[in-house]
């Protein structure tokens, strides 16, 4: 049975920024999610022993790794914490096999070879062991970096945005292999990312970071679908935020009406404990809004808004459209939808928003 990682640390980096977190990571994958500069990497550096916190306590199970009061600071080299760096940090002068052998010099030559081969097979790089890092692809390098960290049989694994820059298909394959590995070893894995796609793909649990603090700790579904805070909503991929005033409540139907401030635009939103005449803050995902080029009829969706297309921009596989419907909405479409609907600048359009796609966040 493997032990949990517990940490409660403070680290002041500048006058403006202090990392101040308490967390417990049980065996399994925990996502550490936040914008860049929110303190995620600093947290990993403190946990791994590369940086000493100013105060606090870090332990794996009953073993204390850092304790400010007693002055205990186990050096990084003795923590048995695997660390995969964002830039991977594979040794460029060593082959993949030698990179993997680096962390296990204490094993006998036979045992070392056996462990390297089996770990490399698990991560599908068995055929690349003799290659140098620069002679393999980006995805293979990520696999080699993971295998190098895991061949040492660490007590905890820290991953600092390890899959940045890879296409989604490659990311998913590597994530599957990591999951399979951890099903057998069951150690705490802290996985840092700023991509909400990875949060859903990976996490059993997510810690949301902002300005060096943990804003929320829950399952990805809870945090991402019902964000209690505007920052969380932004991180969770909500693009549209409006301040509105409640105009009527219908408790029997579980809904209420509100008017977006400064406009005549009315929306039906889920009922909340807010008095008529009070302000509310709404968040709507760009991907949750439908777009039509003529007025739709016979819909279950309660909110149909008339507007004008301002512009569209292609971003990867998504087309981002801005629509003026009293206020500006951001809408995500597929390129083929843009073609089928014959959308061009100043086209009249209708926006369709389901009541429950309108989320209330804290003001």
């Amino acid at each position, binding site marked *: 049975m493997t032990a949990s990682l517990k940490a409660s640390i403070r680290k002041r980096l500048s006058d403006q920024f202090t990392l101040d977190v308490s967390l417990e990571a049980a065996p399994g994958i925990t996502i550490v999610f936040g914008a860049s500069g929110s303190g995620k990497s600093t947290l990993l550096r403190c946990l*791994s*022993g*590369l940086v000493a916190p100013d105060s606090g306590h870090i332990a794996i199970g009953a073993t204390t790794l850092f304790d400010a009061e007693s002055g205990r600071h186990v*050096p*990084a*080299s*003795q*923590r*048995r*914490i*695997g*660390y995969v*760096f964002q*830039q991977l*940090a*594979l*040794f*460029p*002068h060593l082959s993949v096999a030698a990179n993997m052998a*680096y*962390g296990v*010099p204490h094993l006998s030559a036979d045992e070392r070879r056996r462990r390297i081969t089996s770990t490399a097979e698990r991560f599908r790089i068995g055929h690349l062991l003799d290659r140098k890092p*620069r*002679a393999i692809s980006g995805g293979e390098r990520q696999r080699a970096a993971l295998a*190098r*960290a895991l061949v*040492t049989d660490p007590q905890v694994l820290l991953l600092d945005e390890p899959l940045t820059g890879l296409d989604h298909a490659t990311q998913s394959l590597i994530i599957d292999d990591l999951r399979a590995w951890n099903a057998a070893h069951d150690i705490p894995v802290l996985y840092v990312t700023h991509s909400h796609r990875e949060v859903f793909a990976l996490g059993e649990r997510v810690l949301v970071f902002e300005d060096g603090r943990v804003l929320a700790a829950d399952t990805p579904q809870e945090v991402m679908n019902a964000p209690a805070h505007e920052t969380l909503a932004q991180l969770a991929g909500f693009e549209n935020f409006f301040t509105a005033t409640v105009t009527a409540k219908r408790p029997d139907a579980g809904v209420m009406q509100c008017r977006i401030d400064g406009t005549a635009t009315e929306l039906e939103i889920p009922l909340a404990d807010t008095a008529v005449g009070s302000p509310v803050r709404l968040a709507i995902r760009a991907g949750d809004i439908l777009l039509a080029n003529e007025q739709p009829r016979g819909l279950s969706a309660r909110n149909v808004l008339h507007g004008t297309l301002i512009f569209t921009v292609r971003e990867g596989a998504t087309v981002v459209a801005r629509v003026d419907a009293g206020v500006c909405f951001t809408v995500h479409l597929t390129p083929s939808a843009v073609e089928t609907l014959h959308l061009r600048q100043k086209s009249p359009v209708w926006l369709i928003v389901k009541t429950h796609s309108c989320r209330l966040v804290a003001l």
Partner: protein
Amino acid sequence: MDWTAIALSIRLATIVALILLVLGLPIAYWLTFSRWRGKFLIEAVVALPLVLPPTVLGLYVLLAIGTQSPVGRLWTAWTGHGLAFTFEALVLASILYSLPFAVQPIAAAFAQVDVSLLEASSTLGASRWRTFIRVLVPLSIDGIVTGTVLSFAHTLGEFGVVLMVGGNLPGVTRTVSIAIYDQVQGFQYAAANQTALLLLVFSFAVLASVYAILRKPWSVAALP
């Protein structure tokens, strides 16, 4: 041709280059990674021989190893003879004189190594020493070779410091540069010319082969 002087110069330069390799690595390591606020003082001391006239350095070394100085007295008590005007004194002075030529390229190479590689090494359980030997040195090998070759070549060509500290004793302290100076003073221009040409060709050959090795033209083709 003064073969004794040439052999002496090569022996001196080889010994000095090897000692500076051993000394230069830890000094360069400290200069690169120390966070001490007074580090600039040590950097200035290491770089001093670059700007100081060799006669000034030579004079201080001579005073420091003279029979009246603690170092000189200790040496005399230990070996039975004085340190000034000996081959050992030349080695000592040359180490000081060529120090920046060894330390600076090595320190520059250390600073070029990606810090995350050193951090990765420690998270993989390696001690600082193992990180130094297995990661830092192999990745800085260009700077280490350059520093060693430069200190060799610089020692080979020195004149002022040798004259001040070693004098001009054939087979003991008379290096090639002193021999050439002697030959010119004695109007033996042909002999001076021959020795000078030999030194020129030798120095060029050493530097050219090092730069050729560091360029590794054959490995460029192997890049993906």
